[in-house]
């Protein structure tokens, strides 16, 4: 783009704008297929967990499922949404709100006693 050459270039200009440099290589087709396989495998494991009564009743069940779905989430965002390869700005635009959203969910679950802290005080 012709405009690129004319826009600010000195090093002191802030990081957000210039940390990226040129666009990175996008993943190739085979990577996409591999990722799809990984996603499928994780999903299978998740559903499998669900059908293990012995596991469901343990304290590990929920964290395991959360970790597995978080892994899927991250993989899709990083590769399919190519956040890993894209401008840092997008990472900020996405993760900032995502963090606020997760904190809000967690705080709300605490407030409604879904993640309880027992204190023996008035509630």
């Amino acid at each position, binding site marked *: 783009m012709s405009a690129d050459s004319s826009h600010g270039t000195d090093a002191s200009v802030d990081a957000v704008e210039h940390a990226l440099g040129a666009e990175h290589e996008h993943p190739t087709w085979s990577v*996409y297929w591999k990722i799809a396989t990984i996603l499928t495998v994780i999903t299978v494991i998740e559903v499998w967990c669900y059908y293990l009564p012995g596991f469901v009743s343990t304290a590990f*069940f929920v964290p395991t*499922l959360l970790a597995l779905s978080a892994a899927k989430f991250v993989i899709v965002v990083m590769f399919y949404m190519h956040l890993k390869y894209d*401008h840092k700005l997008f990472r900020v635009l*996405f993760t900032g709100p995502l963090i606020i959203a997760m904190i809000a969910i967690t705080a709300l679950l605490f407030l409604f006693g879904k993640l309880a802290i027992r204190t023996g005080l008035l509630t």
Partner: protein
Amino acid sequence: MATTALPSIPTADVGHGYTTTGLPHRKVAIWAFIGSECMLFASLISTYLIYKGRSVKGPFPHEPWTDPSTGHVFKPILNIPVTSCSTFVLLMSSLAMVLALAAVENRDKPKVTLGDRILGSSRLWLFMTALLGTTFLGFQAFEFTSFVHEGLSIRTNLFGSSFFTLTGFHGAHVTAGVIWLLTMLAIDFKRGLGPKDALNVDIMALYWHFVDVVWIAIFTLVYLIR
């Protein structure tokens, strides 16, 4: 880079690709939009989780329930096998979507083998994405009607209200995505999509993947965790 002052840009040029970051406006906007959608779905998901287990009467997601007044026994509502399939379908639609984008971006690359030709067909992959999305919606329609038959509607209890609203909002997003995909597919058939359309497809893809990602969260939080 040169340390001398660069010439100012005649305003006449700004409408034509110049941006401070070098990134297209629409792509910045779609990411901001996706950030905003995070809060939208966070509110919906929180509500579902907060109301989980608070309904004064059934049916319930994972436990059977006997209606004290009629003695009728309701099965647990959620149907994990069916939803696992639809989850898989939606995941695969994301794969189709990246392949469609790659095909559009690489439209001009020479295609030698049959494999190249298949992988390089944006029409095929756009169509596949839309098809898989529609299949997902079909599963959802099936799910919704069977729930209603089993005695759970959006008015039945807190679980019904929050469940249908959450998944309904997601379904509405998928529907919008399918319409978008079909429009794009129509353009592809009309004049062919090439690298200059990559941005438009990219933006659509980001939206589509985001909707997929939301489903990943919903599938675990709503269906699997009990």
